[in-house]
């Protein structure tokens, strides 16, 4: 019954979407306020209905209702509760439902908080947003309905892929989708702006918080996926340039560019036409990501659906929304007025450089991901484009970006002074040079470029902090004055500093672990000891153990350093029952300078086992850096100027200032 209720709510949501797509936009066209007003209640109703549908499916998963085909195919009664819940989106149908739910959440947020938007803009935005939901709801109802029943009811389910049964991966998709779908706001605003032929600084101010929120979610989502790969896949890699990873990375790169170009548009009314295009492209890349992953074009762990019918449907959705948007853009963009002239050396110039490099990087990842598919369909030639290609094209694009990064915020708008910026950055430059010398002195192995890359990280961090210090004129004023200024700085300034410093921290982590990872692969008998990175690891043997839905062999490895006991690690090999599959769980010890990472391999007879041990220096900085970037985004979002909730204050005062309409 509850399942049918969910199904019914899903169909109703589709109908509400239909109304929300047509009426507000039509109202905006003919200037009818009553029609435009349909948008808000419809957006809220659509969100409410989708919550009902999602809750119904979750209920079926939690209670292991195997009469639902989707639950049968992806769940199992022995699964722990958290994975029965995460199982809802751990499959194609459920993840699409989550996708539209988040889409509706953003639409409802515009309806609830967008009260200070001009009436027609809000109506158009809500209509465009609903049209996206409409397409995806149709897709779910026609090709991927999660509410279909089975008769007779099977005794138990087939279970969820065990490598998806993991805390980080359980919450990786919701964040990722919040990011992907969050960019739909930028898209909807771009389309609405093009329809109205009016985009200005105010438009950018409305778009920026949504983009920032989406960017933050995507950052966390990607970081979680990479963190999961690091400890679960068993060899300490954290990024593989896998097509599915690229599918999430491209919207992130484009979204990062969009965040920066929207600043120029907001502050200086420049780069309008470009910012609109970037908004369209960012969400288009999100749609393409959905297509690549959902259609099974690239089969990998993530591509649960190998079904051409669905692929063709999503391809059609993609073509309508990307093609339609670009056509509208080509038609209306020339009429948008360009403003704000600036010199090449200026804050705007810096942000343009940022955009050029980030979009080129996006284009490079795009072509690298699609090239093998395209080439094979053109002349049947099969080639592989793997990590070596991406490393040798992406990294050279990031180096100038990181070199230039500290200059940007120190430049004035319109016309900057590069000499003044250089003078303010001398401390950062000095620290970077010290870093090169220090790294060469301390680590006397590895690639010769690595110390320079470390220096780049230091340069970015120190440069970000310098900017803050320059702003409060530390050094030229007494400390009380400096503290007063620090207090009065807008949060968005802190946001910039923190996010940029996070990038630097991440660069340090990536460089250190890529350049100086140490590795030992050997067969160990119980009682044998091996040394790695100053630690002595003694293999004590293995012991069997049982989990809720798996059996495992747990190795005991005790770690000492200089005769002192450090930790006992327990790397294990698991055998899941439903579906039958083996996974390995690494034993990880987190030291100050890096991770000691031990993996248990196959048995080699006589109680001996293959053991892999790695020392990954500073690897945690990669994820700490992304968390810092997230915090930077959050600081910026909490700035009074940008706060999503700020309009609520305005509404209280509204009636006094604005006469009744």
């Amino acid at each position, binding site marked *: 019954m509850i399942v049918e209720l969910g199904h019914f709510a899903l169909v109703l949501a589709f109908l509400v979407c239909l109304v929300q797509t047509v009426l507000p936009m039509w109202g905006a066209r003919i200037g009818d306020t009553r029609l435009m007003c349909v948008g808000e209640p419809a957006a809220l109703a659509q969100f409410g209905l989708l919550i009902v549908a999602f809750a119904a499916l979750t209920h079926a998963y939690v209670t292991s209702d195997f009469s639902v085909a989707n639950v049968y195919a992806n769940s199992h009664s022995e699964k722990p509760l958290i994975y029965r819940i995460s199982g809802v989106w751990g499959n194609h149908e459920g993840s699409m439902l989550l996708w539209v739910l988040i889409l509706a959440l953003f639409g409802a947020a515009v309806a609830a908080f967008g009260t200070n938007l001009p009436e027609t803009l809000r109506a158009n935005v809500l209509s465009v947003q609903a049209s996206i939901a409409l397409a995806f709801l149709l897709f779910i109802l026609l090709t991927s309905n999660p509410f279909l029943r089975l008769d007779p009811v099977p005794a138990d389910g087939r279970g969820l892929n065990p490598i998806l049964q993991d805390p980080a991966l359980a919450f990786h998709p919701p964040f990722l989708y919040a990011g992907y779908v969050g960019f739909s706001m930028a898209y909807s605003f771009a389309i609405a702006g093009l329809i109205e032929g009016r985009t200005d600084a105010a438009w950018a101010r409305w778009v920026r918080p949504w983009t920032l929120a989406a960017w933050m979610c995507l950052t966390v989502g990607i970081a979680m996926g990479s963190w999961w790969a690091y400890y679960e896949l068993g060899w300490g890699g954290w990024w593989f340039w896998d097509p599915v990873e690229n599918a999430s990375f491209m919207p992130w790169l484009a979204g990062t560019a969009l965040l920066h170009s929207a600043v120029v548009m907001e502050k200086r009314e420049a780069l309008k036409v470009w910012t609109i295009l970037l908004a369209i492209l960012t969400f288009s890349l999100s749609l393409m990501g959905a297509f690549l992953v959902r259609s099974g074009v690239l089969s990998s762990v993530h591509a649960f659906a190998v079904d051409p019918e669905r692929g063709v449907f999503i391809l059609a959705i993609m073509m309508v929304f990307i093609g339609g948007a670009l056509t509208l853009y080509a038609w209306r963009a020339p009429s948008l007025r360009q403003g704000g002239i600036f010199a090449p050396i200026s804050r705007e110039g810096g942000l343009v450089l940022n955009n050029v490099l980030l979009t080129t990087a996006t284009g490079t990842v795009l*072509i690298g991901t699609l090239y093998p598919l395209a080439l094979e369909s053109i002349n049947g030639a099969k080639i592989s484009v793997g990590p070596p*290609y991406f490393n040798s094209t992406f990294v050279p*694009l990031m180096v100038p970006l990181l070199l230039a990064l500290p200059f940007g915020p120190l430049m004035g708008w319109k016309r900057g002074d590069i000499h003044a910026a250089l003078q303010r950055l001398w401390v950062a430059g000095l620290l970077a040079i010290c870093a090169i010398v220090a790294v060469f002195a301390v680590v006397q192995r590895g690639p010769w470029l690595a110390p320079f890359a470390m220096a780049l990280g230091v340069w970015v961090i120190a440069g970000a902090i310098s900017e803050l210090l320059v702003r409060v004129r530390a050094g030229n004023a007494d400390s009380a004055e400096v503290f007063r200024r620090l207090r009065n700085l807008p949060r968005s300034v802190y946001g910039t500093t923190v996010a940029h410093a996070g990038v630097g921290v991440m660069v340090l982590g990536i460089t250190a672990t890529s350049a100086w990872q140490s590795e030992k692969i*050997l067969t160990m008998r119980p009682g044998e000891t091996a040394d790695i990175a100053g630690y002595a690891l003694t293999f004590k043997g293995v012991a069997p153990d049982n989990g809720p839905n798996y059996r495992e062999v747990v190795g005991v490895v005790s770690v000492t350093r200089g005769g002192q006991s450090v930790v006992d690690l327990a790397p294990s090999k698991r055998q899941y029952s439903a579906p039958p599959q083996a996974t390995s769980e690494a034993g990880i010890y987190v030291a100050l300078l890096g991770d000691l990472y031990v993996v248990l391999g196959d048995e080699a007879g006589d109680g001996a086992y*293959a053991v892999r041990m790695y020392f990954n220096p500073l690897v945690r900085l990669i994820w700490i850096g992304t968390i810092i970037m997230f915090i930077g985004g959050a600081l910026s979002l909490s700035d009074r100027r940008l706060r999503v909730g700020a309009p609520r204050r305005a509404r209280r005062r509204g009636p006094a200032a604005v006469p009744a309409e």
Partner: protein
Amino acid sequence: MIEKSARAILVVLSLIVASAAAYAVQPNEVLPDPALEARARGLSANLRCLVCQNQSIDDSDAPLARDLRLLVRERLVAGDSDAEVTRFLVARYGEFVLLRPPLGWHTLMLWLTPVLLLMLAAGGIGWRLVKARGQHIAPAQSPLTADEQARLASLMKDTTSRN
């Protein structure tokens, strides 16, 4: 037809392989000579496990990946140079085995795209700069036209009445 079904089997195989835990290099494969082993690793990073999704042979526990790892080491021990090993593998398995596609006519667009995009951007910006050269950039002076001023004023009124 045969090729098609073979590919279908490969897809199924790769799904199984990709979802199992990856164990990669086994202790008994490692060469006693560290210099040769380092070269083997360097080569492996650029060699694709043919039945996997985008995994190098070092990262995969598929039997075929193991065969390739052993083959690479066999050739190195026999005295082949890195280039000779790569050539040997390409002759045997095709370019598909290389994770870094070599520059050729069929990969020209792949390698040129980053450069072309940068040139396009530089060209676009250069064109805008030339076009804007006549216009005076004065920080103290308002560059807005009367029309824009009016709109700005209405916008400011909008904002102030709302805050």
